[in-house]
């Protein structure tokens, strides 16, 4: 079969932000009519790459050609005029317009009506609006939103907004569609609708490239998968090949060893029954119509390390933020040390002994390391009274000294660099600083949000072993991680999150050897594997996600 003509050629594209390489030397070709998925762990550079293709960002290296024309330096609206349409991660409809007007807005540029005719209102502009409306209605019928045509776009559900965004991009006359996480936040039913629509677009001759995390979704749709990790293209091929590619598995789950890591979790049996520090029942979080978390329940007992794992977009970060009270939520119960935390502010959560090390470190860049650590004592000092903020009491000075010593012992590099500006630390050092800062407050339970993000494997090991040590010193830890191997290596128990729900829980040992985990991340890998282009049947897909018995 003669391959179709190339439509998009990405050649050695690189993007650098300051000293950081978000994308390096990525090359691939997209052919007319292909359905192509772009996947990769969190922070891999997928959206950045998409932005360069859409003209929203100019690559610092390399070239991009669309239908043989170089587009790497064109602004977004010119790229669109040439025939590339895109959607955004957050759907982003025009909230103050109706659904129909949203789609019409997409067609305006192509209609090419100037200022003067628009002012005069007769002639070209007059017919143009009704023509745009007609075309919009056609597109809305195609994607199934006709019932909502006259409603304001703000009342649409998450799934409907994604469909609207696609219709709007189609209205521009685009031949190549770049979809950024079209399935995020959608219910199963909505995802099926989306799959059907994308398939029909492909059948109609459009070329589609989409970024996704939901591997089931990817499995149903794509003929070809490109995998990005740390900005580098590590795989490009048919779905079955990609899914069993060891590099891909390692990128998602962390390096697997023949024998478990040298860290062995503390013996599960313990003489005295352990106190439940954190108790959550039926927690739900909604972002603008989307359910980020639904019916989540968990327990964390004293002295444990509990791991929360799952693919990106599963809701893990949201869960921690809800517990730290920087995100609003609804729950039947949310209590720490026996007292409800559902209605208190984030500062009080810290004062009660529940600390959070956020995703991306969030350190104070222009303060030095020591000042960052001292910031960790803020809650304690404020609890001792406002005066303590101005001049610390003797007790406070002693407590601070003790905590600093403990923290320096754990992370000697921080003592070495205590006068260095925190913004100049390396990724791993910054992560250690963030953990150390949280430890300064002497928390009973420490929550960590993806500490391994963007860090090299050796550094990840170092941090995990630190967490292990902390546990043996009596700290309780709730660890959110995409890197399941590393997390389960030190944890006692774990919960697996997918699409905002807990789909599995158990001891770390059970979960470590559970093939369902791999499936939750990458889709089915065992026998009975569907052929490359065949959609995975819904029943098998549900099993692959680990919701049934393994």
């Amino acid at each position: 079969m003669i391959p179709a003509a190339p439509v998009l050629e990405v050649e050695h594209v690189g993007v650098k932000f300051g000293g950081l390489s978000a994308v390096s030397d990525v090359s691939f070709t997209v052919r007319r009519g292909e359905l192509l998925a772009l996947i990769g762990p969190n922070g891999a550079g997928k959206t950045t790459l998409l932005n360069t293709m859409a003209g929203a960002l100019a690559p610092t290296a390399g070239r991009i050609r669309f239908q043989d024309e170089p587009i790497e330096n064109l602004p977004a609206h010119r790229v669109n005029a040439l025939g590339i349409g895109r959607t955004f991660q957050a759907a982003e409809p025009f909230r103050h317009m109706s659904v129909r007007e949203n789609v019409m807005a997409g067609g305006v540029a192509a209609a090419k009506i100037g200022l003067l005719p628009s002012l005069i209102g007769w002639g070209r502009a007059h017919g143009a609006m009704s023509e745009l409306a007609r075309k919009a209605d056609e597109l809305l019928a195609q994607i199934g939103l006709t019932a909502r045509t006259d409603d304001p776009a703000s009342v649409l559900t998450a799934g409907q907004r994604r469909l609207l965004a696609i219709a709007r991009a189609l209205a521009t006359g685009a031949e190549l569609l770049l979809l950024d996480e079209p399935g995020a936040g959608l219910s199963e039913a909505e995802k099926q609708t989306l799959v059907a629509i994308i398939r029909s677009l492909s059948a109609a001759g459009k070329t589609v490239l989409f970024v996704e995390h939901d591997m089931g979704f990817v499995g149903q749709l794509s003929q070809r998968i490109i995998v990005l990790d740390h900005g580098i293209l590590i795989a490009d091929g048919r779905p079955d090949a990609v899914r069993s590619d060891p590099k891909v598995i390692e990128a998602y789950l962390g390096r697997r060893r023949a024998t478990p890591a040298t860290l062995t979790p503390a013996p599960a049996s313990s003489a005295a029954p352990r106190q439940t520090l954190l108790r959550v029942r039926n927690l739900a979080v909604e972002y603008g119509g989307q359910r980020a978390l639904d019916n989540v329940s968990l327990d964390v007992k004293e002295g444990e390390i509990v791991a929360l794992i799952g693919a990106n977009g599963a809701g893990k970060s949201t869960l921690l933020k809800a517990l730290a009270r920087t995100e609003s939520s609804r729950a039947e119960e949310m209590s720490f040390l026996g007292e409800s935390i559902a209605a208190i502010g984030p500062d009080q959560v810290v004062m009660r002994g529940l600390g959070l090390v956020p995703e991306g470190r969030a350190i104070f860049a222009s303060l030095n390391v020591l000042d960052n650590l001292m910031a960790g004592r803020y809650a304690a000092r404020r609890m001792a009274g406002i005066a303590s903020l101005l001049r610390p009491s003797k007790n406070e000075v002693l407590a601070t000294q003790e905590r600093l010593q403990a923290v320096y012992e754990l992370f000697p590099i921080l003592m070495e660099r205590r006068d260095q500006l925190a913004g100049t630390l390396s990724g791993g050092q910054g992560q250690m600083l963030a953990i150390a800062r949280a430890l300064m407050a002497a928390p009973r339970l420490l929550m960590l949000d993806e500490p391994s993000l963007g860090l090299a494997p050796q550094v990840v090991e170092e941090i995990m072993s630190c967490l292990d040590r902390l546990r043996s010193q009596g700290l309780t830890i709730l660890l959110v991680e995409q890197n399941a191997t590393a997390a389960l290596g030190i944890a006692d128990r774990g919960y697996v999150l997918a699409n905002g729900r807990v789909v599995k829980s158990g001891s770390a040992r059970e979960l470590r050897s559970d093939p369902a985990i791999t499936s939750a991340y990458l889709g089915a890998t065992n026998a009975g594997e569907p052929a490359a282009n065949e959609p995975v049947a819904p029943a098998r897909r549900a099993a692959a996600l680990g919701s049934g018995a393994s």
Partner: protein
Amino acid sequence: MVEALQILLSGLVVGSIYGLVGVGFTGIYNVTGIVNFAQGDFAVVGALMTITLNLAGVPLLPAALLAIAITCALAAVVERMAIRPVRQDVIRGIIITIGIGVVIQGVAVIAWGTDAQPMPAFSGERPIEFFGATLLPQSLWVIGTAVALVGGLYVFFQHTYLGKMFRACAMNPFAARLVGMRVATMSAISFMLSGILGAVAGIIIAPIALTQYDSGLQLGIKGFVACIIGGFGNPIGAALGGLLLGILEAFAAGYVSSGYKNAIAFVLLLVFLFFRPGGLLGEMERASS
């Protein structure tokens, strides 16, 4: 030569005021992200209130302190009533602070009329000789107070725990919450601090430059220019920016025309905004949470 020195000195005096107002801007912007268009009006209120109290028989220093305290309270009220409701929306915040400036100005007209008000100099009016140029004692008060205040603020923000925590709050409000800071309280305090700075600026310059109900907006804009030149974030930067602006204005007035001297600030503003877009936020970056 002597003339140049004279001009330089008067530029330093005015520039100190711009610097103080600019530091006030920075304080609020860093914690809230809002540019307070009423900043200059804090100066006017401080000055006019001092004058009134003084005329009513209160000695100068207590009158000044009382006026500063009242302006500080006013700033807190402004933050609570007007800024908090629209915290996120930048444009609405701007328009509200404009409205506040207008209201303050209106009240000033009613309370003090439209005529310029004089204030007695702090330590007499005998000019001091300085390398051939003359210097009013009040000028020393202005420069001295400005240096002391800015110096004090520098020490506060760079070398004290609480000052560093304020900066942290601006750098990363999300992380600040996680270590137990109440961002809303910090915001209110930064407004009060700016109120104090504004009032002091207005009071110390009042004996030299007559204070009038509408001096506020111009002063505010020039303070903003000082920040743009010096970079938001560092009080030293705003202070230096103010000095530079004051000197440039003085030289323009001396050698070109006094009518155009006001235009200097605005032209400088436009030049900086156009040719250094985005790179004007100084050292401290506001992390988006």
